[in-house]
């Protein structure tokens, strides 16, 4: 008999669609509370986002010219953060009925003044670079990204 092994990330992603019997097994293994923690509470750092998504740590991007490496590192962080907050949901940008939410920043050069202005949404349009990788399921998640991960977004937008 082979023991079944499942890590936290897989357990969480499978839990939602699991049958009642499988849910019970997962709850016995990880605890019921484990599955009740909201994404808002469990994604507090880049490490949390990496763990949630199973993505490898930030590549060194030594393939690109040196002056662009900080930008690509921060862009990778923001992509992973968006994936984590969206709980694996990937957008179909061609679906007109699926609204995508974006954080919108005041980017006036000063590190202290940079910050979230508002969250916006679109159905069939998209600004340069915002695309499907940096969109959020709802305004709540876009706001969390813009506030909790302000530094990561500031780096991506400024570097």
């Amino acid at each position: 008999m082979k023991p079944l092994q499942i890590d936290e990330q897989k357990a969480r992603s499978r839990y939602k669609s699991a049958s009642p019997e499988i849910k019970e097994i997962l709850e016995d293994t990880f605890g019921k509370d484990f599955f009740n923690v909201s994404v808002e509470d469990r994604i507090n750092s880049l490490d949390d986002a990496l763990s949630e998504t199973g993505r490898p740590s930030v590549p060194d991007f030594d393939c690109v010219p040196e002056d662009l490496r900080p930008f690509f590192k921060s862009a990778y962080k923001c992509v992973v953060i968006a994936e984590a907050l969206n709980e694996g949901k990937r957008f179909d940008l061609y679906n007109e009925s699926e609204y995508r939410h974006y954080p919108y920043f005041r980017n006036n050069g000063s590190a202290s003044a940079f910050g979230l202005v508002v969250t916006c949404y679109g159905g069939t349009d998209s600004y340069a670079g915002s695309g499907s990788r940096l969109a959020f399921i709802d305004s709540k998640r876009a706001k969390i990204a813009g506030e909790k991960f302000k530094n990561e977004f500031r780096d991506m937008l400024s570097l």
Partner: protein
Amino acid sequence: MKKNPNLEKIQTVEDAFQATGRPQVDFSNVPEDLREHFENYYKGIVLTESLNKGWKPDWENWNEPKWRPWFRMSASAFGLYGADCGDTDSYAGSGSRLQNIDEETAEYSATQFSDIWKGIQLG
């Protein structure tokens, strides 16, 4: 006649690499499903640099318009929706590296190089 002479010079992505001296790169150290996104992002940066005549956005200057293309996301008709300008604001993803010096340049970039922009948005 285009006001920005670089719009006549930069007809292909190879022209953009040549004009900037940036190397073509291989993103094999990035997770496979993210490579298309980052490859196109890199091309978009090189393209934008090549078109901007050395201009870089000054985020402390509220009087300087910064132009970025805005796309209609349609499977059959992906393309430019318009060019929008801001002073010191920025959407997620539309940072320093993808801003254009003027409206004409933003529109040219989006229409002449729509495959790159599509790759960034969808990759």
